[in-house]
């Protein structure tokens, strides 16, 4: 009897120990779907923010109401936010490793897409009728070309933020300029004017030309803001990284670094807290990101009166200016827990959201929900978007730049190469450059050479 009681007690203790490790049922998000009772339960992960979750939830509810069937089973889409385990990417990695990945998710950038594709963790889409239909019905045109890997497509591009520069209109006017600089000569004129009128600027509350703390950040993705768009502009769309070689144009890299270095001591490297939402904007220009627009609006800032967006200055008038494309899309996971039926169910859902009948409305709803622009080549011409863009000139500006927006090169080693560029090139250069007077630009050649060597080593590149 004693032994039985002991055994029962031990068993109970063991079970109690691991009780917390179990699944908490159907709401755990650990299952991507199952076939049961004529229903196909498809799990979709939205980005981990309320606006995007709400958008996808409303689309899933509308789709579920259509009672669309596959193989005689009604497709039911469930939307969950991607779990916030440090990053969305880490959450997806964890889900793939543990067999709990959803059938599809949004918020995938091109670098992570390549890692997933190289890991055979996502489906190829170029031959899927649904993909072809979406590209056609959403008028995506050549915007999908930048996502291809060896001619294959793995993502349905969803939205694009064309990042450029934002300028303080009142400070510019006080310096005698009615618009942001278009060429590098104009840019130097602005710096010169600022340098000559620093007292006047400080009286206005403008304490620096640039809040430059960002330039010292080591994270690779920052290169989109302070390298990719300037480099693309200076090389007129040139590339700097291929699958096995660093093809960077040394002169353009030097020009890019000196674009920031020319600011010298007028760049403030100490962090300035929320400069663009302060009553008196304390800087002359900054990186202009579409997702900051709502904060500007909430702070009462008016486009054209307080701030205005502009592309990076070009070397000579008539050159094409480029932006950085912060763009993300939808992928469909290939994993042991995703059956062919679940995959088809997920395709049917996304295909319905962006079919000929719904695509324009879905994209309009997306803009309203997120204030980010969908990936469409016709955004500036399509009548469906005319009203919302007319009422929001900042958004219209970003829309006009979609075709000139360039993503960071999408390779699994891109981040390593970017981190090396910052650690060995940009950060040491900027730290030294700010000790110089504005326009007494520190020569970036040695820093660029050090960066190139480090980038080659980091990416094991030729």
């Amino acid at each position, binding site marked *: 009897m004693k032994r039985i009681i002991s055994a029962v007690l031990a068993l109970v203790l063991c079970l109690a120990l691991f009780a917390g490790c179990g699944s908490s049922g159907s709401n755990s998000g650990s299952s991507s779907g199952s076939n049961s009772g004529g229903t196909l339960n498809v799990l979709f992960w939205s980005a981990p923010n309320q606006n995007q979750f709400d958008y996808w939830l409303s689309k899933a509810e509308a789709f579920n109401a259509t009672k669309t069937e596959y193989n005689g089973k009604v497709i039911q889409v469930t939307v969950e936010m991607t779990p916030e385990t*440090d990053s969305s*990417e880490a959450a997806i990695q964890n889900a793939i490793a543990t067999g709990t990945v959803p059938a599809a998710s949004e918020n995938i950038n091109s670098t992570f897409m390549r890692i997933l594709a190289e890991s055979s963790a996502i489906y190829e889409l170029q031959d899927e009728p649904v993909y072809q239909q979406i590209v056609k019905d959403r008028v995506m045109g050549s915007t999908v070309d930048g996502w291809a890997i060896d001619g294959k497509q793995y993502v349905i591009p969803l939205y694009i933020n064309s990042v450029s520069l934002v300028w303080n209109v009142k400070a510019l006017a006080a310096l005698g300029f009615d618009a942001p600089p278009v060429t590098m000569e104009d840019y130097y004129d602005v710096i010169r004017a600022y340098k000559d009128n620093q007292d006047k600027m400080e009286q206005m509350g403008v304490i620096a030309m640039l809040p430059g703390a960002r330039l*010292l950040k080591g994270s690779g993705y920052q290169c989109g803001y302070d390298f990719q768009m300037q480099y693309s502009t200076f090389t007129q769309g040139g590339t700097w990284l291929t699958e096995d070689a660093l093809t960077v144009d040394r002169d353009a890299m030097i020009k890019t670094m000196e674009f920031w270095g020319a600011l010298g001591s007028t760049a403030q490297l*100490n962090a300035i*807290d929320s400069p663009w939402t*302060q009553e008196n904007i304390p800087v002359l220009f900054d990186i202009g990101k579409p997702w900051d627009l709502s904060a500007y609006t909430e702070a009462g800032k008016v486009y054209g009166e307080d701030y205005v967006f502009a592309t990076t200055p070009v070397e000579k008038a008539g050159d094409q200016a480029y932006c950085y494309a912060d763009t993300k899309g939808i992928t469909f996971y290939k994993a042991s827990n995703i059956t062919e039926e679940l995959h088809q169910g997920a395709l049917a859902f996304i295909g319905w959201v962006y079919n000929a009948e719904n695509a324009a409305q879905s994209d309009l709803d997306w803009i309203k929900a997120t204030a980010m622009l969908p990936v469409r080549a016709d955004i500036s011409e399509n009548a469906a978007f005319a009203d919302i863009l007319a009422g929001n000139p900042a958004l219209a500006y970003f829309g006009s730049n979609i075709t000139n927006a360039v993503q960071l090169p999408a390779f699994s080693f891109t981040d390593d190469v970017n981190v090396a560029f910052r650690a060995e090139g940009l950060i040491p250069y900027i*730290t030294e450059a700010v000790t110089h007077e504005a326009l007494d630009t520190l020569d970036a050649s040695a820093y660029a050479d050090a960066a190139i060597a480090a980038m080659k080593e980091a990416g094991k590149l030729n």
Partner: protein
Amino acid sequence: MDRKKPKKLQYARETAAGFLFCSPYIVFFLVLFLIPLIWAFWLSAMNWNLMSPNREFVGLQNFLNAFRDKKVLAAFKNSWKYFICVVSFSLIGGLVIALLVNRMPMRVRGIGSVLFFIPYLTSGVAVSVMTKYLFSYNSILNTFLREKLNIGINWFINPTSAFAVIIIMIVWKLSGYYALYLTAAMQGISADVKEAAELDGSTGIHRFFHITLPMMLPTITTILTLAAGTSLGVYTEPFLLTEGGPGNATTTWTLEIYYRAFTRFDSGYGTAMAILFAIQIFVTIRIINTVMRKLNQKYGC
């Protein structure tokens, strides 16, 4: 012969019962420690991102790469800097707070202890955000320094000041916590001992160094072990304030392991780094325990 058999049987029964009662811990140890540990060693010998069906066995290559990796070497070097600064300053801070609390009137002593303990309960994220604001260009501190004293410090650009800010944050957080242990240890010293010391003419600083401190050595050993673990595993503060920069001045093992395993998806290499980090913690704590045991034997009670 016949008398031996029941004894053996009883011994076997008792042993089985012992194992049975230990089984929850054995299962816990196997499932949550031993199996993951073996799996971690296996993963550290792989070139794998946890997602691909293809994984490449690389043997000890990940470990060899770690010894040549600038970031790993910086993390290793910084971990000692964090260890020395955090352990010494938080211990001194804790001692000062404990002495203060110990001298407080009895009726406010409890409140005093709780007030000093509050920083430990505050979220590291919240503290980091506040610190980031405090040291930003337009903060009250920097405005005062700039306008009244004509001092402009680029806090997170200078490696020394960036490191110092993080150390201050961690010490501020931990001192009150360690003070609780030290206060309890101080109050545990019996009045007889104090009285005897006084009779022998030992008072003030002499009594503190020759009576109080030696009697607190077991508690200090515990604090050193806890502080070593905390200081070597610093993550939130540099992650939110400096991202390990400027350069690699504030980076840590945990930060580099996170970047490697979860932003660059090099899980095998990240695990190799984690194992090296675990070895460093193990060795450090062994050294602390050995040194403190000797000190306890020589001076302690």
